[in-house]
């Protein structure tokens, strides 16, 4: 068997071991959704919020429900492990074996995601069905397929994003606390809480130039029907572009970081 397929399967096994942990983490998502539903209900009920945000009431509701799921799906957690590896010399065990650390981490991460993905997609399907029936969302098979493709790319993109963040550990030994801050900021600017384009076109333009929105906001808004074919194609290309760019950034950081690691001692 290919070693990375093996790592992938072990990642799945590991995530099934920790299923209770995952279910509990879903609770926080539920609270997040409830709070926002109240907030948006109040805003849309008492003001002309739609004109300000550019989202209709049903769009913002669909977004709230879906983005919470997508944000959970693309979320990482391996950055803490990478930090541990670098800080405490756990990296040694990868260095002495004929494996690539990045591939190892990627496939382990994907494996850990799969069981969660299954469950979250079920929940997302229920939420989408609810949106179609109660919020007047119009959906097509094509759009769902494109959404799934964008989701997989979003997961990969977020992996490389956090891989690069995690590798900062080579230079700053104790960045554990930083990860908490960084991931909150990234979740927000990725549109994981509310869409970033409610702040107007200029803001949306800048966000479009950055990689973050392509992890969460872009896939969510595909379902929401806010993009035409050209915009979707452009978005997918941007996802690919950032994946390739961050992949190489990760490689360069790894090479330099490793040189430092091997010089100062693991």
């Amino acid at each position, binding site marked *: *068997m*290919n*070693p990375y*397929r*093996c*790592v992938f399967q*072990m990642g799945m*096994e*590991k995530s099934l*071991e*920790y299923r209770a942990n995952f279910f509990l983490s879903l609770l926080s998502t539920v609270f997040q959704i409830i709070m926002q539903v109240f907030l948006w209900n109040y805003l849309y009920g008492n003001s002309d919020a739609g004109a300000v945000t550019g989202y209709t009431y049903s769009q913002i509701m669909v977004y709230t429900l879906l983005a919470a799921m997508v944000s959970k799906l693309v979320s990482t957690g391996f950055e803490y492990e990478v930090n541990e590896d670098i800080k405490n*010399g*756990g990296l*040694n*065990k990868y*260095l*002495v*074996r*004929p*494996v690539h650390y990045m591939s190892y981490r990627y496939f382990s991460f994907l494996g850990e995601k799969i069981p969660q993905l299954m469950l979250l997609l079920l929940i997302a399907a229920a939420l989408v069905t609810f949106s179609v029936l109660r919020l007047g969302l119009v959906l097509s098979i094509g759009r769902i397929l494109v959404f799934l493709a964008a989701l997989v790319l979003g997961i990969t993109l977020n992996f490389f994003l956090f891989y690069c963040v995690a590798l900062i550990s080579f230079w700053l030994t104790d960045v554990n606390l930083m990860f908490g801050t960084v991931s909150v900021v990234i979740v927000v600017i990725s549109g994981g809480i509310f869409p970033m384009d409610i702040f107007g076109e200029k803001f949306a333009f800048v966000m479009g130039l950055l990689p973050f929105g392509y992890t969460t906001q872009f896939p969510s808004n595909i379902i929401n029907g806010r993009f035409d074919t050209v915009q979707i194609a452009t978005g997918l290309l941007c996802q690919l572009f950032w994946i390739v760019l961050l992949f190489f950034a990760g490689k360069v950081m790894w090479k330099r970081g490793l*040189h430092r690691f*091997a*010089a*100062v*001692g*693991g």
Partner: protein
Amino acid sequence: MEIIKVEHLKKEFTYYKKAGGLKGSFQNLFHREALVKEAVKDVSFSVEKGEIIGLLGPNGAGKTTTLKMLSGILYPTAGNVDIDGFVPWERKNEFKRRFSIVMGQKNQLWWDLPACDSFYLNKCIYDVDDMEYKKTVEELAELLDVKDLMNVQVRRLSLGERMKMEILAALIHKPEILFLDEPTIGLDIISQQKIRDFLHFYNEQKKTTIILTSHYMRDIEALCSRAVIINQGQLVYDGQLEDINHLMGDKKLLTIKCNANADPELLSAYGKVREIKGSEVVLEVSKGKLKETASGILANLPVEDFNVTEVPLEESIALIFQKEVAS
């Protein structure tokens, strides 16, 4: 045939000085004084194929640093290492397939999964043939007596059990060279003994070249015929274990139990009194004078019991450590 050749190996680390207390921490925010520590300075030795050598030294002597350079984890500051034609820190896959390193204080197994999963992963990584893999695992599990533990999550294993699993995982691809960094650390006497027996047997069977570091002299005595001793980063001894006592002046220990009335002080005339435990006295005598001294004591004193032993290896090695620190 020499399989490992280490020449003038040297490793320096830079670190920062910090004065004690909060004041020192603040000072460090603005100005840090860099210091250089020579963890390993000019170490050279070589290892024959199939040999087990003990790499000894007190804490901080540079043993682990040396092993890390030999396995390519660290770049040396200067010097050369040639292992079977490879330079370790180039980290060629071909080289990685030839060796394994087990560190007593680190683990390579997946913590949340049974050990057999990690074994299988290693099989995939090293591309070991299915049949070959099955045979190896069965054989090793039998030898290490861990057959029933293969399907238990690693986190539920005891330290000794986990260590055996670590060693098993490291041997899946049948490495030609094995580095063991304190494989028996923190284990009880029986577990230590088992791991020792296993390593002895494995080395005899497979002719694997082994470099072992340990703080337990018993490990070293049982497994290695040769020792390389380093202290403060420098090589202080490279030779047969049995010659160490010779080097330290060839002393024998006489344990003498006298009749209760005899004055132990009388014995000091025959040699250096090391210890007095009630009526038992331990006397240090040079090897050449052993016969003469012993017969003298037996003739002149009311001896009840009499015993001749070697100076414990630990003691000789401790002396080597101290000698170097002093000089």
